[in-house]
C-alpha cells in the first residue's frame, strides 16, 4: 500500500485522496490487518473505498477499534456507508452455505467523520459529500 497523503503536510496536494481497495487485495488479509489499513488511511484524511466491504464480525471489530482511537480535537471517528441489506437476500445459514460469502460482498465507503457527510442513502444509491477538513 503506498503511503497516504498527510493532510498536515504543506507540500501535500490540495485535494482528498481516495483509496479504492480491491476484494483481491483484502482476501489474504487478517481482520486486524484490514482494520489497520482502513483506519491508517482515515487518520491521514483519506476516503477508503472497499470493493467487497467487510464481514459483519469485521464491522463489529472496526467499530470497537475506532472507539479506542477517538481522541478529542484529533480524531472523532469514522463515517461508513454501505448499501442496506436487500430483503430478498437469503440470510439463513443454508442460504449462506449455498450462496457463499459472495452474496454479502458490498461496496463500502469509509472516511473521517468530520470530512464525509451522507446526503442520501437507499438500497441502490449512496450520495455523500466529501470535504477537505
Amino acid at each position, binding site marked *: 500500500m503506498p503511503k497516504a497523503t498527510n493532510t498536515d503536510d504543506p507540500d501535500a496536494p490540495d485535494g482528498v485522496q481516495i483509496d479504492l481497495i480491491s476484494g483481491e487485495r483484502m482476501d489474504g488479509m487478517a481482520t486486524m490487518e484490514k482494520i489497520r489499513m482502513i483506519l491508517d488511511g482515515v487518520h491521514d484524511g483519506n476516503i477508503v473505498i472497499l470493493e467487497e466491504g467487510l*464481514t*459483519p*464480525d469485521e*464491522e*463489529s*471489530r472496526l*467499530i*470497537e477499534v*475506532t*472507539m*479506542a482511537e*477517538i481522541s*478529542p480535537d484529533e480524531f*472523532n*471517528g*469514522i*463515517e*461508513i*456507508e*454501505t448499501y*442496506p*441489506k436487500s*430483503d430478498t437476500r437469503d*440470510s439463513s*445459514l443454508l442460504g*449462506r*452455505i449455498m450462496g457463499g*460469502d459472495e452474496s454479502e460482498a458490498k461496496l463500502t465507503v469509509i472516511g473521517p*467523520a*468530520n470530512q464525509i457527510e*451522507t446526503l442520501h*442513502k*437507499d438500497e441502490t444509491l449512496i450520495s455523500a459529500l466529501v470535504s477537505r477538513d
Partner: protein
Amino acid sequence: MGLFTELKDSISRVTDRLFSEQEPKRIGIYGPPNAGKTTLANRIARDWTGDAIGAESHIPHETRRARRKEDVEIERNGKSVTIDIVDTPGVTTKVDYEEFTDEMEEDDAIRRSREATEGVAEAMHWLREDVDGVIYVLDSAEDPITQVNTMLIGIIESRDLPVLIFANKIDLDESSVKRIEDAFPQHKTVPLSAKEGENMDEVYENIAEYFG
C-alpha cells in the same frame, strides 16, 4: 468465515441454548444513541420487579456502561419467560465532545465522550460474546436507514440471534412505524412509547412469545 467454522459455531449456539433452557436468557437492548433504550429498560424493570436500571436523559450517551437487571420474569397469555435485561450504550461510529458542550463544561464533555467511546466498545463486546437475544430499539420519528442500524442488524443476523425491533416514541407527531417496517421487513416490528407506556401489552406478549 469458513463453512466448517460457521457450521460448528451454529451447532454450538443451538446446543448451548438447548442445554441452558432453564437459565435466564440475556436479552440485550441495542440501538443508536437517544432511541429510548434506558427508558424502555426502566419501564420493563419497573413493571416486573419494581426497580429501575439507570438514569435517562435527552443528552446522547447518558448510558455509558452496559447494565444488567437479572431475573426479570415476564408473563403474558400463559407464556412466561425469565430474562436478564442488558441495557447497553447507544452504538455509533463517531463521538465528538463538542456535541455536549452546550449542556456542560468542556472538561465534563471530554470525559463524557471518552466514557461514551468505551461504552460503545463494551456494547459491541457484549453483542459478540454475551447476549442470547436482542431487542433493537429505534426512534420511530427518525430515519431508520442509517449505517449504524444496517451494520448492527447485520451483525445480529450473522450471529443467528433472535431479534425484535421496537419502534419507540410513537407518541411523537413525526413517528412512522411503517418506515421501520419497510426498512427491516425480515424482522417483527412492535410499536410503543416507553416513556408514555403505550402498547406495553403487545411489547410483553412479544417478549414472552419470542424469547420464551
